């Protein structure tokens, strides 16, 4: 894989184009360095509202890094330098006046490994709203979020128990509920099922289908099958470049770029 070089001036192959009014997130020419190492080489995509966009590619291709530029999680790493622009509903997320905290408030995130806080299930879900000074009915919000994450029936009578007492799959759904409780518009998922067994994975995938009615989902996955199952659009990345992007069925059935074709057919990666 590593020996396949991507020319610096590679132009992303796009099977279709997204009308600006349909896009909720617009990344333009995002470049990112970890110290001296350049991890992203000018990535541009538009992410349409209420759809699931999957980022695929071999490990180390920069898909997680790119995902984290969307909610400015990379700002937490001291050596990171970012160029380019990232617009959310027309607002430049990297504008000086924008606090990364508000970005993450609007663009939620679910991580590789389930990471519930060592607090009760209730407190896990209520964590975000409490930070934001939520004034409404907290019980109702917690229930709504847990229902949206298809977890309510399983935890209804043990809301006071520690989030860590749940199984791995339940923990991940708790994390999704927790992310939804702050009522973001976009939810980023960084390989959300990589630590889970197949049955738990199924449930999460089902859940992703459900929640795209209300949220825009961007999911990083190392499994092409998963991308095929859950996503509407797929973005294929390699060595920090976006090689090709387009509707998932097109990418999988009729990839335009040679590298995409090779990756899809399993000849590398």
């Amino acid at each position: 894989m590593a020996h396949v070089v991507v020319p610096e001036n590679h132009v992303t192959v796009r099977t279709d184009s997204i009308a600006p009014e349909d896009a909720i997130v617009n990344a333009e020419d995002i470049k990112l360095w970890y110290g001296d190492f350049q991890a992203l080489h000018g990535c541009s995509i538009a992410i349409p509202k209420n759809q699931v966009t999957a980022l695929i590619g071999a490990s180390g291709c920069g898909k997680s890094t790119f995902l984290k530029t969307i909610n400015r999680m990379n700002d937490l790493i001291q050596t990171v330098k970012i160029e380019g622009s990232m617009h959310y509903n027309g607002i430049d997320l990297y504008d000086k006046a924008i606090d990364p905290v508000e970005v993450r408030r609007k663009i939620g995130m679910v991580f590789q490994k389930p990471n519930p806080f060592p607090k009760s299930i209730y407190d896990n879900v209520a964590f975000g709203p409490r930070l934001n000074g939520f004034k409404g009915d907290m019980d109702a919000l917690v229930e709504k979020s847990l229902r949206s994450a298809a977890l309510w029936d399983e935890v209804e009578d043990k809301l006071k128990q520690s989030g860590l007492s749940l199984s791995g799959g339940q923990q991940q759904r708790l994390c999704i509920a927790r992310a939804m409780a702050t009522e973001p518009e976009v939810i980023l998922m960084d390989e959300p099922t990589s630590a889970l067994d197949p049955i738990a994975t199924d449930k999460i995938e089902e859940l992703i289908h459900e929640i795209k009615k209300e949220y825009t989902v961007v999911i990083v996955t190392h499994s092409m099958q998963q991308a095929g199952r859950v996503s509407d659009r797929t973005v294929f990345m390699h060595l920090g470049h976006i090689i090709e992007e387009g509707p998932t069925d097109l990418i999988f059935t009729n990839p335009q770029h040679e590298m995409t074709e090779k990756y899809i057919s399993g000849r590398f990666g």
Partner: protein
Amino acid sequence: MSNLTQNTLLTPEERKRLKARQRTGGILKFLTVLPIVLAILLILFVFLSNINNAFVWQTIKRTGSSSGMLFDKKEVTSQEKGFELELEARGDDPAETLSDEENRRKFLLRSRIDHLPEANGEKDKVIVWTSRDKIVDQRPYLEGRRLKSELAAEAAEEGYDFALNPLLDKAFLTRNGSSRPHLAGFRTAIVGTLWVIMLVILLSTVVGVGTAVYLEEYAPKNWFSAVLEVNLRNLAGVPSIVYGLLGAYTFVRSWQMGSSILAAALTLSLLILPVVVIASREAIRAVPSSLRQASYGLGATKLQTVNNVVLPNAVTGIVTGVILAIARAIGETAPLVMIGGAGFISTIPGGWDVLFDRFSVMPLQIYSYFIVPDGNFREVASAGILILLSLLIAIYFVAFLIRLRFERKW
């Protein structure tokens, strides 16, 4: 949908709230820096206050040739020489007085030489033999300087002499202990500390590293090893004064060692043993097991593996741990008070039975300055404290360098 004029994602209330949250965060961050600043200030303050106390200004009122005088620095080269000069000034024959045991004792009792720091140093060293409360005023450095500038005008006419008389000078290091503040030296304490600490290093390293090797490399996983672990952990929390009681009862009385260097060394060794063991175990545990397996794979025995693989790779951690533990032992006072370490001893430990000599060590000597009612010892104590602290800082610095130099590569 898009709103290009807006530069926030939040509603005005949310925005306001976020500003407040960030402000609270800033205050919290400041509050967590504060303890560090205070800690650094305390360390500086401890140093400076002791420097201030140890470097004193003396104000000597000239009231006529018979009641006080300054000697030139070249004249007073030793304590004995000071006595001679004093006797000469009184019109006595120094040789006669000092050679006769009885006369000498009487003279020393009356002598006011105790305002003399060993006068082989700077010009300002002073001999005064008038009543010190009237004529000589000794002030900490800063206060003394102020007084000096206040009295500057009078000094010329009325006759004041000012002398910067650091109690901490070369002679302080080489004089023996004394019950007179300005003749008190730190040599006995320094030698005592050296003897005790040498023994402590020997005992605690052998037993401590031995225990660590046993626990990490040999001990089977059974109840006995568990008892060993719990026991060590609890010993680490036993107050040092309780070790002093153990030493006093067992070593000093039952084993009849008396208040000796050996009893002190044994007590301090037991005191720092848990620290040495814990540090050594950490260092041994940090040696990757792949190295051990490689050694066993080559057919080495356990002993060979420990000797050739484990210990060489753990030595930096062990040495650093031992150094830090020793630094603690050097500063310990309470347990040595318990076993009867002396404040003032006039003989330097040494000779074939040195282990059973009575002793003083630096912190004990400092504490002894506190017990005597003479207020002038406060400044002497500061001089001692400066030496003790300098030694400890040097030790910490060495440990720091070792850690910096040999940081683990795997």
